[in-house]
């Protein structure tokens, strides 16, 4: 019973956080912050730009089909102050992304972090 209360209260707490727009120029209500998805794929394009950065990632489905995902990250003024460089991601690179997915199920999300081929991790600023 205590456990149930705890979960309900925590859920309410998380819902309040989800309603808070992130540090950005637009609402992030389109992303589902109750879920985290891990994507392994190949970088097709990295747009290190304002007002947001974008990663186009090609993911291979279990059936062997290619699926392109669009992932939104924060702006260079924030990312550069936390170790990112224009060349942190390059086309052809195999990376693992942790994202908050789109609520509508489309192939997109908000970047939480990226793990590079050398095993190092960069934060995407989600939250």
């Amino acid at each position, binding site marked *: 019973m205590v456990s149930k209360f705890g979960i309900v209260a925590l859920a309410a707490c998380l819902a309040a956080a989800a309603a808070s*727009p992130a540090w950005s120029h637009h*609402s992030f209500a389109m992303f589902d912050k109750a879920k985290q998805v891990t994507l392994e794929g190949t970088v097709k394009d990295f747009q290190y730009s*304002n*007002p947001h950065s*974008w990663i186009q990632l090609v993911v291979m489905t279990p059936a062997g089909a290619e699926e392109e995902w*669009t992932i939104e990250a924060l702006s260079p*003024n924030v990312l550069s*102050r936390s170790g990112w460089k224009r060349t942190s991601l390059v086309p052809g690179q195999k990376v693992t992304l942790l994202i908050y997915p789109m609520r509508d199920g489309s192939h997109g999300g908000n970047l939480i972090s990226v793990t590079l081929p050398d095993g190092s991790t960069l934060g995407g600023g989600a939250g």
Partner: protein
Amino acid sequence: MARLKTNALGCAAALAFCVVAAASAGAQYPAKSEKQAAPTPARLPDGNPNWTGFWTPVGGILDRDFGPGFKPRAPGAPNPARAPAASRELLKSPYKEKYEQIQKDTADGKVTYDDAALCLPPGMPRMMGATYGLEILQTPGQVTMTSEYQAESRRIWLDGRKHPRDEDALPTYAGHSIGHWEGDVLVVDTVQTRGDLVIDATRLPQSLSMHLTERFSAPQPGILQDDITVDDPIVYEKPWTMTKRYRYRPDLNLEEYVCEDNNRNVSPTGAPSFK
């Protein structure tokens, strides 16, 4: 049973953290480092405090360790760019109903109109939330503040001029600001802001009649505080005050932010899109 207990404890701990984080909103300015830098010299040749330099909001994104291992903001943790929740209780009809509908839509995951998504500047007082940082320049008769977010600037005139007459003035994003020193406190009076702006990202409204009074002070070296009183009798039952705090960051400088460069979030409806 042991597992259930662990879960219950974990949830209780998380809940306690959530409550504590929410309750402590804005109560402290946790030190980024043990030694807080402050502008030098401490005073300008005219004897007034020297606040020239780059400042970041206390508790803001550049105030946190944001490198590898970055953790998302804790649930319920304060967002320094927000107006205090108590201000919402003062909303008059029909602003109150409209505001509540926006909060409900946001909670339901609906994406609503946001002028910021169209790269329009926040204006006053939202720009003092200064998402990333604030550059302050003091020159004789003038203080210039530029928020890194959208490179939006405001000028505070200290040369004794008055506000333009309302019938002559074009309302602007930053409004018209005049100021004077009361000891080491800079008092700023702002009028003639646009009526279609919002006070924070929750879309807390303001009107053409809004009058802002700010009191800038340094509660400790290297920390700047802006107490902003919002007097808008069209929208609110009575005036209310919000406090912004900034940390002096000589290790950083204002970076370029051109929102129009690659704005993939534009949609014809003004709601941010995703593609």
